[in-house]
C-alpha cells in the first residue's frame, strides 16, 4: 500500500475525437485508479487469508503441509466400489452399505505381507467413506500390493452381509510413496519452467517491468486459489492431487494471457495518446478492456461450470478451482497488474507529458 497517495485527477469527459484509443461505451468513464487503494487492499486481504490458511494447515498435525496432499502426492491406495443394485433403480434402504457392517467384514480379513520385513497393513486401519448415500464406498490406506488390493475386493465381493458389488465400476489407484514425491517434483519443475519462459517472452515483447508485474499477478492468483483449497482442506477435508496441479498450471496460463491483453492495450494507448498522463492512459486502457475481459471471463466460465455440474469427484474440484481462479485472474489482470504498473510509472516518470520514457529521465 502506498502511504502517501495523491488525489487522482478529476474525471475527464472523453472528447468525441475519432481516436480509437479513447474508450467509449458502457464503462468508458470508469477510472480504476480512483479505487486503487480499495482494490489493492482487497488483494492484500485475500493473499493474507491464503497465507494464514497455509500456516494453519502446516501447524495441523494431521496435515503438516500448506495443503492437504491427496493420494497422488502422498502415496497410498484408494479402492472405490459400487453396489450392483444400480441398474434397475436405486438401492433399497436395507441394501445400502453401512460403515459398521463394512468394518466388521473387513475385520475378518487378513492380508498377506508384501514381502520380508514389510508387515501387511491392518484392514481396521483403513479410512472408509460412503459414497452416494451408501451405494458405493471408498477405502483408503497406505500403498497396497496388487495382490492385497485384489484380496480386499474379493473379500468384500464375497461377503454375505453386503449386497453384490459391480465389478465394472470398480476403481483402484495405488501410488507408491516414492512416486508421489516424484510427481510433486515434476509438477513444480514444470511450473517454474513455464513461469520463466513466459517472463522472458513478456520482457522481450513489452518490458522487464511488465514481466515482473505479470508474474506478480500470476503468483497472486495461484496463491489465492491455493489458499481457498487450503481452507477447504482444513474445513471440509478436500485433498489436492495431480489434477489440482493441472488447474494451477492452467490458471497460470490464463492469468498471464489476460494480463498480456491489458498490457497490449496500455501499450497501444501509450502510442496513440502520449499527451495523457501515465495514470490516465492506464485508466483508459482498463476501461477499454473491461467489457472484453468480463465477456471473456463469462464465456470461459460457462464450459467450466458445466464441467463442475456434470462431473463428479476429483474432476469437480478441478472445475471449481478453475472457475474460482478465472475470476481471480480476471480481477488481477484488470486491476492489480495495471494499477501497480501505474504506480511504478508514476515514480519513475514524474513528468507526464513526454511520450518517450528516455526523454522523461532527462532533467
Amino acid at each position: 500500500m502506498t502511504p502517501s497517495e495523491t488525489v487522482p485527477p478529476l474525471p475527464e469527459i472523453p472528447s468525441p475525437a475519432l481516436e480509437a484509443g479513447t474508450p467509449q461505451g458502457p464503462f468508458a468513464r470508469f477510472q480504476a485508479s480512483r479505487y486503487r487503494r480499495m482494490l489493492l487492499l482487497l488483494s492484500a486481504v485475500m493473499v493474507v487469508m491464503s497465507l494464514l490458511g497455509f500456516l494453519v494447515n502446516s501447524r495441523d498435525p494431521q496435515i503438516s503441509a500448506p495443503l492437504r496432499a491427496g493420494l497422488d502426492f502422498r502415496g497410498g491406495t484408494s479402492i472405490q466400489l459400487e453396489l450392483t443394485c444400480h441398474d434397475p433403480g436405486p438401492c433399497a434402504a436395507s441394501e445400502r452399505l453401512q460403515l459398521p457392517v463394512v468394518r466388521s467384514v473387513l475385520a475378518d480379513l487378513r492380508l498377506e505381507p508384501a514381502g520380508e520385513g514389510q508387515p501387511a497393513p491392518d484392514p481396521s486401519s483403513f479410512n472408509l467413506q460412503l459414497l452416494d448415500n451408501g451405494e458405493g464406498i471408498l477405502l483408503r490406506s497406505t500403498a497396497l500390493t496388487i495382490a492385497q488390493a485384489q484380496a480386499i475386493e474379493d473379500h468384500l465381493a464375497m461377503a454375505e452381509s453386503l449386497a453384490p458389488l459391480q465389478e465394472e465400476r470398480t476403481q483402484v489407484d495405488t501410488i507408491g510413496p516414492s512416486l508421489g514425491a516424484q510427481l510433486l517434483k515434476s509438477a513444480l519443475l514444470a511450473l517454474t519452467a513455464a513461469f520463466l519462459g513466459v517472463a522472458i517472452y513478456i520482457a522481450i515483447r513489452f518490458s522487464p517491468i511488465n514481466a515482473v508485474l505479470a508474474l506478480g499477478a500470476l503468483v497472486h492468483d495461484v496463491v489465492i486459489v491455493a489458499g481457498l483449497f487450503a481452507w477447504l482442506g482444513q474445513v471440509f477435508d478436500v485433498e489436492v492431487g495431480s489434477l489440482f496441479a493441472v488447474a494451477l498450471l492452467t490458471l497460470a496460463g490464463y492469468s498471464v494471457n489476460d494480463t498480456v491483453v491489458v498490457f497490449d492495450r496500455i501499450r497501444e494507448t501509450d502510442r496513440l495518446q502520449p499527451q495523457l498522463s501515465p495514470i490516465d492512459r492506464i485508466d483508459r486502457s482498463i476501461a477499454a478492456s473491461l467489457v472484453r475481459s468480463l465477456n471473456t471471463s463469462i464465456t470461459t466460465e460457462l464450459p467450466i461450470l458445466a464441467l463442475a455440474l456434470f462431473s463428479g469427484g476429483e474432476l469437480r474440484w478441478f472445475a471449481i478451482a478453475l472457475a474460482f481462479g478465472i475470476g481471480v485472474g480476471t480481477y488481477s489482470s484488470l486491476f492489480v497488474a495495471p494499477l501497480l504498473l501505474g504506480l511504478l510509472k508514476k515514480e519513475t516518470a514524474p513528468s507526464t507529458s513526454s511520450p518517450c520514457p528516455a526523454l522523461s529521465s532527462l532533467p
Partner: protein
Amino acid sequence: MVRQGWLPVILAMILAAVVLLSNQSLQLGLDLRGGHQLSARVLNPDPEAVITADDLDGVKNVIQRRIDGLGLAQTQIYAVGSDRVVVQLPTAQPPQEGDAEAEAAVDNTLQQAANQITERAVLQFGVLRPSEADRYATLAQERRDARVAVLLGQQQLEQLQRSRGNAEQLSAVREELEVAQTTFDQLEQDIGQLFDLRPLTGDDLVQVVAEPNPESQGEYYQLSLTFSSDGAQAFADLTKEVASDFNLRLAILLDGRSISEATVGREFRENGITGGGARITGAFTLERARELEVQLRGGSLPYDTEIVEQRTVGATLGADNVRRSLNAALAGLALVSGLMVVIYRLPGLVAVAALAIYALLNLAVYALVPVVLTLPGMAGLILSFGMAVDANVLIFERIREELRSGRKLYQAVEAGFERAFSSIFDGSVTTLISCVALGYLGSGLVRGFAITLGIGVGLSLFTSLICSKTLLKTSLFLYPALRKIKYFQPVQ
C-alpha cells in the same frame, strides 16, 4: 470487396477433417475406456551409477517382449521420466455377467502382467560343490516336505473357499500356507547357494517352449530349452564335468533359486550332452510354465523393478466418464454459443460457425497425431473452447469500438481484426509457452492436459483470425442486407 482466398482452403480443411474422422476413430485413455495401468520403477543397485536412457529403454524392451508374449490386446508400454516404465492394459471386453471363468481370467491378467514386470528371470547354471553333497541331501529332503505342506495347504484353502467356510478357519489355513510357502522359498535359495555358477545363462537361449511333461501324464509341465551354438558348447562342457563324478549335480537357478537339480549319466563323461537342447522338469503347473516361457523368451531384466503405481478403472466407469465430459462439453458449447449470439449478434453467429469448425479441426488433429484422450485432456479441450471464444470477443469488441468512433462498417471490420491481432497473438504465445513446458516436464495427467490445450490454442489462432474473418466478410459480400450497423451493435 477483396477476394476471399481463404474460403476454399477452409472448406477443404473441413472436408479433410470429416473424411479423417469417419475413417479413424479417436483413441481413448484408460480412464475413459477402462483398464489397468501399472508403473514400474527401476531400482538402482548402485547409487553411484546412473540409469541412462538406454538402460531404461532396455528394461522397457524386455517388458514389452514379455507383455506381448502374454498375448494381450492393445497394450501400451512406454518409458517415463528417468526411471519408470508404464504398462497399460485396456480391458478387452467386459466379461459376460455370471461368466466366472472369464472374470477370473480378467483378474489374473493384472497379476500375470505384474509378475512379468517385476520378476527378473535371470537363468543360471551351476555345479554342486563336492564338499556340500551331504548338506544338499538334507536340504533336498526338507524341501520335499515343504512342497507337500504347500500343496496340502493350497488344497485346503481351495476347499474352504468353495464351501464358503468361516472366516476364522480361512485365515488360519491362509497363515499356515504362507509359512509353508516362505519355508519352501527359503530352501530353494539355500540350495541354490550350494552350487558354483558356470558361464552359461538365459542370454544363451534361442528358444524356450513350455510343454506337458510326458512322465507326469500331462499333469505337470516342463520347459524345453534350445541353446545358441556357444551356449551348446558351454552346456556340453558343463554336463561333461558333472558326469565325471557320481556325487555331482547340475542345478538350474532362476533369480538365485534352484528350480531343478539333475545328475548326468556316466555315458556323457567323454563329450557331455551335445546337441544344444535341455529341459527343465520341475513340477510346474501350466500357468507357471507359461509364465517362465514368456519371461525367458523376453529375456532377463537388467535391474530389479518395483511397482509404484497401479490404477484400475472399470469399463462402465470409463464409459460414464466419457458421457459426463461429453455432456459438459456440449452444454458448455451450447451456452457459449447462445451468449455469443445474444451479445454480438451477426458476428456472434459467425463466431459460432467458426467454433464448430474449431471443434471439428481439434478432433481431426487428435485422430491424426494421434492424441490419446484422457479426462484431463477433455478438460484441456473444454478450456481451449473458452480461449477460442476469447479471441472472437477481443475482435468483436474492437469492431464495436471502431464503429463507435464513426468508421464505416467494412473499415471497422478490417480494423477490428487488425488491431486485435497483437493481443490475441501475445496471449496465445504465452499460453503455448506454458503448454510446451508442461508437456515436456509434466507427467501423465499434466501432459495430456497440456497437449490438448496446446493444440486448441494453436488452432484457435487459425479459426479466430482466419475463419471468423473470412466467414464474416464473405457473408457481408454475399448478402448486402446484412450490411447494417445495427447487426453489429448491442440490442438497445
